[in-house]
């Protein structure tokens, strides 16, 4: 088991390193001189040269890459070129919105999706299954940001239960912050819940035709009991993979959904950075996103090993 964990962590670090290299060298291809960009067109060549030296821009690319990596390890992501503030702080501020949003959405989609999937599989072929799957089929097809608009129309504009957008910082009024995240999390979660319900149902139906379910029934269980005792745990294996991918998708999805609700999250920051060509900020924000995504994959892999004794011992 230790071996399995070590190997996964090693793979995670390698992926991260290559990802960092891809991001760094891709953005490094861009023409233009950041120093001149910062100082403006009227700066003297001497001033530009001095700033270049100070920013380490004259070093070879590989050295700058190394510096960037080691900086990040110390928590130093560099200075934003346009806002002249430490990038780490900017990103951390925005993450205070994006991360809770992602986690809420994840929890909601699991709490709704998995039980409905199990319910549908339990009654497969019956009317309840058909109904749930039509619902899921629709849910899968709804773009989350558009769903956000619909939710705003209903709950914020018509019913006036919740704020239509904006965000109160956590330290001012945590209750208001929470209320501000309800609709965005729902918008993100429901299409995901539909996917989860479908995957859960498919996995469970698949498992239910396996021999060990028949064995459990032969022991004296009804189909439902056998499915619950032996099926769900086995069906969770494929579902875990999807959960990992979904978390990644949700992180990316927040960037889009933030727009609907005017939330000051990571997406807004990145969009501004792109428009203002703030490379340091884009670079750091993307590597953070990649980090979160790969870390989720790592957690899923480890969870797999935890659930399935065969994987713990698998060679190769």
């Amino acid at each position, binding site marked *: 088991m230790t071996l399995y964990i070590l190997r996964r962590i090693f793979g995670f670090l390698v992926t991260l390193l290559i990802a960092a290299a*891809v991001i760094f060298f891709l953005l490094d291809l861009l023409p233009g001189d950041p120093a001149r960009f910062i100082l403006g067109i009227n700066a003297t060549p001497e001033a530009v040269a001095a700033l270049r030296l100070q920013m380490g821009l004259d070093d070879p690319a590989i050295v700058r890459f190394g510096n960037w990596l080691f900086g990040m390890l110390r928590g130093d992501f560099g200075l934003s070129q346009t806002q002249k503030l430490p990038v780490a702080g900017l990103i951390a501020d925005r993450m205070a919105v994006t991360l809770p949003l992602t986690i809420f959405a994840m929890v909601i989609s699991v709490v709704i999706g998995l039980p409905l999937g199990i319910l549908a599989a339990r009654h497969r072929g019956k009317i309840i299954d058909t109904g749930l799957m039509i619902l899921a089929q629709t849910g899968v*097809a709804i773009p989350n940001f558009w769903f956000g*608009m619909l939710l705003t129309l209903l709950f914020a504009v018509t019913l006036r239960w919740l704020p239509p957008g904006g965000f109160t910082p956590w330290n001012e009024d945590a209750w208001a912050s929470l209320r501000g995240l309800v609709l965005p999390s729902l918008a993100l979660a429901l299409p995901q819940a539909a996917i989860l319900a479908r995957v859960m149902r*498919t996995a469970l139906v698949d498992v239910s035709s396996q021999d060990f379910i028949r064995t459990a029934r032969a022991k004296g269980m009804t189909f439902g009991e056998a499915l619950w005792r032996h099926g769900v745990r086995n069906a969770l294996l494929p579902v875990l993979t999807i959960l990992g991918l979904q978390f990644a998708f949700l992180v990316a*999805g927040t960037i889009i959904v933030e727009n609907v609700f005017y939330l000051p999250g990571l997406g807004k920051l990145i969009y501004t950075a*792109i428009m203002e060509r703030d490379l340091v900020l884009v670079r750091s924000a993307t590597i953070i996103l990649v980090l979160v*995504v790969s870390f989720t*994959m790592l957690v899923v892999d480890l969870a797999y090993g935890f659930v399935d004794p065969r994987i713990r011992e698998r060679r190769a």
Partner: protein
Amino acid sequence: MNWRSLLKHPGLVIGLSATALFALLALLSLVWTPYPIADISIARRFATPGPEHWLGTDQLGRDMLSLIMSGTLTSFTVGAMAVLIGAGIGVPLGLAAAIYDGPVEWVVLRFSDLAFAFPAVVIAILIATLVGPGASNAVIAIGIFNVPVFAQVARGGALAISTLDFVAAARLAGLSKPMIALRHLLPNIASLIIVQGTIQLSLGILAEAGLSYIGLGTQPPATSLGLMLRDAQSLFLIHPWLSLAPGLAIVVIVIALNIAGDGLRDALDPRLRNRGLANVAG
């Protein structure tokens, strides 16, 4: 597989017909739309649906039906190109990983891990920073995202097939590994790939909408369903119809594609019934 047996799968027929209807409308927009989409007229803006403008007009007085026809074309084109990129690169990679073990497989798997770590939005961000936003940006971002999906599907399918004796028989007959992949593996995983293709197409259409909505995809004066939603963003509290219409179009197209995909899976290969959807979360 003949046409008659296709008809036994009502889902496939319904899904394909609905998809074909939208595709035809989209293609029609190349030669004809009720009104030119660049036709701006403040005088007739915010018209409600009626005999003159079936779906009303937007804040610039453009005909919504024309916009949706043209936007659907963009959405389909972006989604389809992204599938072509994904399958075109991913399937050969997956096959290579399946037939050559050792270093080739290792490289493909690591590449696939790496690509999975970059959600389409992140790729789009990088490309937008490099070359600026645009529809081709969305194609590349979604396409790259599709690559590891197809690679995994192709590799998984090919590995399952390659344990069968007819592959060993082909090796005995002196076929080279690429020949075996072409003659024996590819035809037997084709249905898997087609089914995955429909899933990725519908995901691509959703992703294009998202990217255009945040301004990283299609740019004006071209239009796409996502861009229409972006334009309607600031107005949707007052004029909900402007966002309802394109949104519903996306939902219906994606549902049609998914139904067609499910039907196709059942019709082509009943064994796949319980698989699929595995990559839907991307």
